[in-house]
């Protein structure tokens, strides 16, 4: 005590040998009205908070507000980013969709809450600080071992050294000492600054090296930081490679690859290739092959066309011999002849004619039940919206157009007119119509696969059969079903007609 006289006294500490004496002392100190107290023990002691009268911490509140701030930040952030600032469709969801926001909100809630708890604990414990006056007494080190300490701060209202000393002595403490301020220097030692500066200096070296390399010339070859970005392992054809065990750069095709030209030209075009070739070689120019088209101009030698160019055929487009028609085509609709075709004519390739006998008259693929079912599925997806599911031309789009009295609507053809039956309208021609379109109908080559287009043709033929066939065409074992369905339908129609009649009568009677 004597040697500490000139130092500032921060408080008083008393040492106890057992938990029980400490707890008793705590209660005495609490009951004597001391507020700024603290106890130190080698292990957690249950109930010491109440014994010392320490108020519950406000840390849970900090944690709660931290968590709420996290939720709010996450929601606001995502709402702003996804809903306002950078609208980007993800998985076809609305821009602001809360289920998608939840995981991030959850994570940020946890993150902010733990930050609040962690740093809140620091703040409440006045951390970080260089030292605590408690550590000035070497005997205090035993608090981590086998001794218990009770501390009363000098700023406590009731603090009076003599009184506290007596109180502690009565409570059973054999060692009572004032706690003096830690007067060890508060400056950060020089060498720490030195070390920091050294580290900073060393860490600048790589940067400086890079700078130097970028700014100076050198006769040495360039230094490659990312070697395989500068020298890509990608190779050209016929080169050897180290990437594969067999050293070949060129790999086999992935299983299931469809090669260009794998399907015969007839299947792809719907035309008798040999015959149409004799008519006009230029028809084989692909409509998508712009280079070939422009090079062809008006007088290109048709013999120079490559086989590939013949694969994607064009039925009724860009006849280079007919400049007038060419202009009209590019001005008008894609399918050509938009103006002149009468809506109900139903005759597809009315324009630069490919004679009907040039088209394949039959579907060049095997037609079985599965094939027609596939055609039905595709028809109902792509065709039925206009042509109607039964092919009558009364599809939803048509109904709608009629309802709003659209001026420019060209009604879709009924597929049941005689001019579209196979004898008048070969299968290949119908395939061509689906592929390239007709009048207002666009081509579906880009949407429907070749095989599926043929399947649609097969299904349309089946649809037509429903209106022209007779009962004899139906297998014997299914006829009964159809008969009964027919009777049922007739009965229903009759019933409905009677109802309508009654209704009409009633309205007339009212009049």
């Amino acid at each position, binding site marked *: 005590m004597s040697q500490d006289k000139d130092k500032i006294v921060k408080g008083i500490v008393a040492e106890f040998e057992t938990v029980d004496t400490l707890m008793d002392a705590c209660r005495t100190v609490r009951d004597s009205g001391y507020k700024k107290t603290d106890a130190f023990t080698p292990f957690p*002691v249950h*109930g010491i*908070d*109440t*014994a010392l009268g320490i108020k519950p911490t406000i840390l*849970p509140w900090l944690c709660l507000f931290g968590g709420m701030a996290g939720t709010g930040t996450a929601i606001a952030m995502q709402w702003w980013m996804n809903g306002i600032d950078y609208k980007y469709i993800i*998985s076809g969801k609305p821009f602001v969709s809360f*289920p*998608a926001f*939840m995981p991030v909100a959850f994570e940020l809630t946890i993150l902010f809450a733990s930050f609040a708890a962690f740093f809140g604990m620091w703040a409440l414990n006045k951390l970080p600080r260089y030292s605590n006056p408690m550590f000035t007494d070497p005997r205090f080190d035993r608090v981590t071992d086998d001794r218990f300490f009770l501390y009363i701060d000098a700023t406590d209202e009731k603090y009076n050294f003599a009184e506290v000393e007596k109180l502690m002595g009565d409570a059973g403490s054999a060692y009572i000492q004032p706690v003096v301020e830690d007067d060890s220097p508060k400056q950060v030692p020089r060498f720490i600054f030195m070390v920091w500066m050294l580290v900073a200096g060393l860490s600048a070296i790589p940067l400086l090296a890079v700078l130097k390399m970028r700014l100076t010339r050198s006769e040495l070859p360039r230094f490659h930081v990312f070697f395989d970005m500068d020298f890509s392992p990608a190779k050209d054809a016929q080169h050897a490679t180290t990437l594969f065990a067999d050293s070949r750069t060129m790999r086999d095709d992935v299983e299931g690859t469809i090669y260009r030209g794998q399907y015969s030209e007839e299947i792809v075009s719907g035309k008798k290739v040999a015959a149409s070739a004799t008519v006009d070689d230029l028809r084989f120019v692909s409509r998508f092959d712009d280079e070939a088209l422009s090079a062809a101009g008006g007088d290109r030698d048709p013999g120079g066309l490559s086989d590939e160019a013949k694969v994607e055929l064009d039925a009724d487009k860009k006849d280079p011999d007919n400049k007038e028609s060419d202009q009209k085509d590019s001005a008008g609709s894609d399918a050509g002849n938009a103006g002149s075709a009468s809506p109900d004519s139903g005759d597809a390739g009315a324009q630069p004619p490919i004679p009907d006998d040039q088209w394949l008259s039959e579907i060049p693929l095997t037609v079985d039940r599965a094939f027609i079912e596939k055609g039905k599925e595709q028809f109902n997806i792509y065709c039925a919206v206009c042509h109607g599911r039964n092919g009558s031309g009364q599809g939803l789009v048509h109904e709608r157009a009629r309802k709003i009295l659209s001026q420019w609507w060209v009604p879709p053809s009924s597929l049941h007119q005689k001019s579209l039956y196979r004898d008048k309208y070969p299968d290949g021609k119908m395939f061509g119509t689906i592929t390239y379109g007709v009048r207002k109908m666009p081509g579906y080559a880009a949407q429907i696969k070749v095989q599926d287009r043929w399947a649609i043709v097969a299904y349309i033929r089946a649809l037509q059969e429903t209106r022209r066939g007779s009962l004899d065409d139906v297998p014997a074992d299914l006829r009964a079903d159809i008969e009964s369905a027919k009777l049922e339908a007739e009965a229903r129609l009759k019933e409905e007609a009677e109802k309508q009649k009654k209704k009409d009568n009633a309205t007339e009677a009212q009049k």
Partner: protein
Amino acid sequence: MSEHAAPAIKPANDPAFKLPASLASLQLPLLAGGLLLLLVGFGLAYSNAAKIGFSAYLVSFIYCLTLSIGCLFFVIVQHLVRAGWSVVVRRIAELFMIMIVPLAVLFIPVLVATWMSNGLYIWTLDGWMTETVGVDPEIWKAKSGWLDPGWFTIRSLIYFAVYIGLAVFYYRGSTLQDETGQKSATEKLQYWAGPAAMLFALTTTFAAFDWVMSLAPMWFSTMFGVYMFAGAILAAHCVICLFSYLMQRCGAMRDEVTVEHYHDLGKLIFGFTFFWTYISFSQYLLIWYGNIPEETEWFWIRQTNGWGSLSVVIILFHWIVPFMGTLSRHVRRRPWAMAAWSGYLLVMHFIDVFWMIMPEAHQGITESITAVGVAGAILCGVGMLALMVGLVLSLAGNTKLLPVRDPRLGESLAFENI
């Protein structure tokens, strides 16, 4: 608390461990009334439609089952982690866990319905897949081997065999120790806790798939077992908390169960409220994001025809309200408050089970659920719960209310949180 000395371990025949007379006298009214309500409820719902009647019965069965298997898991887990704190409330869990035995008998009507055409499960209807839109017959062909009344019955028997085996093993081990006081009994229960937990997890997952998820036979969610388990374990903690409080109010275990135990139960209830939310949201999020018709079907049904408002009710009152309500330790350290929240959550759990099962009752029938059907389902649930509580009380009358000679009883009595 060290403020006061821990209560001394009382002798095993102390009256504090006996079922209070006021509760014992409730046995008969609960048993009789429960059975009556169960029958009336079933009859009411049955008058709505036969399938709705069985669905209502399934709601009450699954509700009671989750309470029971939740308690079973609670007991297993206490042994698995060698928990000291929970000894004083463990017997209540054990009493509810052994209710799996009477529940096996109560399962018979569900089995009967399985053998009826569309009595409860739509897949029992011949040719149901041709009459339901969007069912791929190929997929159903692969599934139909599993969802077959005979194989379903065998599986149900296996599930009950496992549940009853586990429950009896742990119940007998604990009650025998009341007599012998042998430490080795605890060691044996602990030794088998690991395998028991795994067995329990598998059984619960498959039971949830069969008994509840197969109501929508083409729908699948691998999380469904966990989802049902989350509700079960939450409900189990609520039952333990509520029953401890009731016992104490009636005069038993007054010194043994302290505010510290309620605090711990409260923390677990709070945690499992969120666990339930976490699991159900995880299940929802993936399906919502994937947006594949065969997966969204289940939630779609629950968003339409008025079920949507029930879904919102569950989100608000099964998650947000109890989450905020039990967040504070001041609430958790008030036994009456935790008992109230437990009762509240048990009601919410019933609504959750109702929401899982009843929307599927429409499938394959022309009737829709009326107020009578809903009232029937509620009466069924109240009835079966009363029946189960009555059985618990009659069993509790013959045993001690806590494991009086458990080697960790002293630790549990002295337990404190801070």
